[in-house]
């Protein structure tokens, strides 16, 4: 028991939220945050595989990627990027509210983050619907006609069929991102309920902080998806 002197010496202001394996709340928080970052690194590698596939196919079928990229809405994509950045601001403010112990502000900013997340998913749904109507979803009904120049033969037939590779990656990458958003929305609902119950006192809001890390990470993935999928080249192309 001699080795327990540090534990006994540590100030226990909030013993109810301090787990027994930790000396202080600060150490407990640092460990939880460290673990969250390890998880986010595995997420970087997961999305890294998708970005790697994108990189290779973009180099192999660049004209098809340009044609595919020009067929998705830059307006909706830019609005969605702004929506997600706004939700990151409200999430950062939620963490701040928890830190200063402002429960009502915390609930307000978590709810704002939730709503902005739902707006993002709604706009995403509109985009997916447009692609469905245009027969741009890879599969049996896939048929690529450049929406910029309908009626004529806009792109060579081989390039047109290669755009299905672009759209496969588009749906896979934005779909995986949207799945992360859906999980985030679910967790947000739980956090709002817990915040309402007063579960996050200013000395113990690690769950809010770690969820903030997750939400910002999902934002960062979109920060890369937006230029890579929507903005490959918007200059008029000579096909």
């Amino acid at each position, binding site marked *: 028991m001699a080795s327990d002197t540090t534990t006994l010496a540590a100030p226990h202001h909030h013993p109810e939220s301090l787990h027994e394996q930790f000396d202080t709340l600060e150490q407990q928080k640092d460990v939880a945050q460290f673990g969250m*970052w390890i998880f986010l690194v595995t997420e*970087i590698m997961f999305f890294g595989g998708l970005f*790697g596939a994108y990189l290779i196919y973009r180099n192999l079928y660049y004209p098809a990627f340009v044609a595919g990229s020009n067929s998705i809405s830059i307006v909706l994509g830019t609005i969605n990027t702004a929506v997600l950045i706004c939700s990151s601001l409200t999430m950062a403010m939620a963490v701040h509210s928890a830190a200063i112990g402002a429960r009502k502000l915390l609930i307000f900013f978590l709810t704002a983050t939730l709503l902005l997340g739902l707006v993002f998913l709604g706009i995403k749904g509109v985009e997916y619907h447009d692609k469905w109507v245009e027969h741009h979803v890879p599969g049996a009904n896939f048929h690529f006609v450049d929406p910029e120049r309908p009626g004529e033969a806009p792109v060579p037939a081989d390039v047109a069929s290669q755009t299905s590779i672009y759209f496969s990656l588009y749906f896979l990458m934005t779909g995986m991102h949207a799945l992360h958003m859906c999980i985030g929305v679910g967790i947000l609902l739980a956090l709002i309920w817990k915040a309402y119950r007063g579960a996050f006192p200013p000395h113990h809001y690690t769950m809010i902080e770690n969820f903030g890390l997750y939400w910002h990470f999902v934002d960062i993935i979109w920060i890369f998806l937006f230029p890579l999928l929507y903005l490959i080249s918007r200059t008029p192309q000579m096909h």
Partner: protein
Amino acid sequence: MATTHGGHIVAPRIYVLIWAILIVFTGLTAWASFGDFGIFNPIIALLIAFTKASLVILFFMHVKYSPRMIALVIGCGLFFLSILMVLTTSDYITRHWVG
């Protein structure tokens, strides 16, 4: 009172400033995609994306104010990501060199 959590409290005006920069960069990258900068089009897009990501990581994710260990974890992640990218692409771009 918040110091009991051991965290650094970032002033909200810093968050708003970072948010404004991120919005400006979003407009900038969308605008730049309409210009014809040749090889620099994807480079500009990626530079802006990396700048935005860095701002989010440093300020929104508090890494600027977190233990150095966190920066090390992120560095390791990016290191392994670069191995994934560099080795995969070096395979594909050198395949036609032989045979």
